[in-house]
């Protein structure tokens, strides 16, 4: 059991209220996993590789913002064992700072065609592990996968540190829809060609993968500190793929994964990169007051509010570019205009997608400062 404290409890209540659309005020959420080293005496490489030190720097950094204006919650915790996490969900090599990249270069996905011809059939016949276990050693040192599991074995202890610091962490896991995993492992160009030439085969493979995920979600032990989990969508954005692909290969999977999380009392946080305007109505299929959609400035939240009203909570959507190049006043202005239009009900302010390493400190603070006005 977690030991809580009054500040944490109060913020957790606010988070629950916002998901239920019962909040009076807007919430401001910290998002920027890779930013702390930019403003600390540590390289990004060291911050990423030494998880104990990295976690400490991360919380210190959030505290620095919180000292100026309240950080009501955190989107993602410190990205410990991040390379393994990304490799596991996306089946792509991730180049890391201090390894393939310079000490302070942000990690970078190096997408190659690793899913070979015949692999969809293999997934259908033997399950996704048959393919993943072949791909993983090609993209990451398997020791790091072990370290990933060791790191996450301590999740409860880590969660306690955020609780002690007073911050509810919204996302405690990554759920990757099969469409995205296959796209990463096959590489985008080849995968979209497959979607054109053999959609039925992909669907069959995705169904197997979905079944595995649903079983995994249903059978996991309860973790009382978990608020929500990330369900990612980027290659499957409505702004990119045709309705036929979206209806068939993207949405049904996101939807079922979301329902499975809800079944376990976990809030699905649908991380929607790029533009999802065309399909906003479909989010009405999700149960009301149970989900958050996390947009990046490309989806029109004004339209989303009209279409979805108070059905799902909104998290976002300060465009990440703004954080690096705009002024704090511009950031505040962007947020004020948004909130004046859509109101504060069910709204969590945060950087769209993620805050880049080059984000100005004052711009990050601006999100939390302006939140106090609403």
């Amino acid at each position: 059991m977690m030991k809580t404290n009054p500040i944490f409890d109060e913020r957790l209540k606010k988070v629950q209220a916002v998901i239920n659309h019962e909040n009076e005020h807007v919430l401001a959420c910290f998002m920027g996993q890779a930013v702390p080293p930019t403003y600390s005496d540590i390289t990004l490489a060291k911050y990423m590789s030494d998880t104990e030190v990295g976690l400490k720097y991360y919380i210190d950094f959030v505290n620095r913002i919180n000292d100026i204006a309240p950080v009501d919650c955190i989107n993602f915790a410190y990205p410990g064992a991040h390379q393994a996490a990304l490799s596991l969900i996306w089946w792509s090599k991730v180049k890391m700072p201090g390894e393939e990249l310079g000490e302070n270069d942000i990690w970078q996905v190096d997408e190659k065609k690793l899913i070979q011809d015949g692999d969809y059939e293999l997934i259908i016949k033997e399950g996704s592990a048959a393919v993943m276990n072949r791909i993983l050693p090609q993209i990451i040192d398997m020791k790091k996968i072990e370290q990933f599991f060791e790191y996450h074995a301590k999740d409860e202890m880590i969660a306690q540190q955020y609780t002690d610091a007073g911050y509810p962490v919204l996302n405690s896991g990554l759920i990757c829809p099969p469409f995205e995993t296959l796209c990463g492992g096959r590489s985008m160009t080849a995968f979209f060609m497959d979607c054109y030439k053999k959609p039925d085969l992909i669907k069959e493979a995705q169904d197997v993968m979905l079944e595995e995920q649903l079983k995994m979600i249903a059978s996991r032990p309860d973790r009382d500190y978990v608020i929500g989990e990330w369900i990612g969508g980027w290659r499957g954005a409505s702004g990119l793929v045709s309705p036929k692909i979206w209806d068939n290969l993207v949405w049904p999977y996101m939807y079922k994964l979301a329902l499975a999380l809800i079944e376990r009392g976990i809030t699905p946080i649908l991380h929607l990169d790029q533009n999802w305007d065309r399909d906003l109505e479909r989010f009405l299929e999700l149960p009301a007051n149970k989900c958050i959609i996390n947009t990046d400035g490309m989806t029109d939240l004004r339209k989303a509010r009209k279409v979805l009203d108070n059905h799902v909570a909104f998290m976002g959507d300060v465009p990440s570019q703004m954080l690096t190049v705009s002024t704090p006043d511009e950031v505040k202005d962007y947020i004020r205009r948004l909130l004046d239009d859509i109101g504060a009900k069910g709204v969590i302010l945060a950087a769209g997608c993620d805050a880049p390493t080059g984000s100005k400190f004052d711009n990050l603070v601006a999100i939390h400062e302006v939140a106090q006005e609403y």
Partner: protein
Amino acid sequence: MNGSKIVLFTGFLGSGKTSLLLRCARNLAEIKKSSAIIVNEVGEIGIDNLQMKKMGYTVWEIFGGCICCTLSVSLEDTLTQLMTNYELDYILVEPSGAADPSAIYPALSHSGFSKENIRNVMILDPTRIEMFEAVLEPYLAASVPLADFAVINKIDVATAVEIKKTERVIKQYHQDLPTVQIDVKQLLNEQIQKIIGG
């Protein structure tokens, strides 16, 4: 302000953006125009930094951090640095081929480039046109209207039917868009002039 012109080489992944950009860069070097290149790091044909340096170019690679952000956030920073430190006739930019290019316009205008100083050259690979229409229709609908010029490439390997279809698709989304058909390996200087514009 700056007199540089930005040429964007847009188009879906693997369409031939880098190949065409490099040909244009070589041509600009020959006619003694100063230019810089900004590329998105991912791509089948990397840019040979050393070779470009010999031609007098510096290549800036822009990195995206998040696995899902295909849009690079450092474009604007890079542009600002370039314009502060160099006198450039052209800045050749290859945005990521994985996302709708509309997202980069705010960064360009915020760095002081007006629509007249931006030329969006969209490369359409006719050999994959059927896939684009079936799978990536929203991508076409978002990106073709933004183009100032279209290039149908790979005519050395595409069929006449595919080329026709590509012309039709371009028309469908952008009625009067000027278009050339090329094989990048046989590109003529006049074609390059047309592509880059005046």
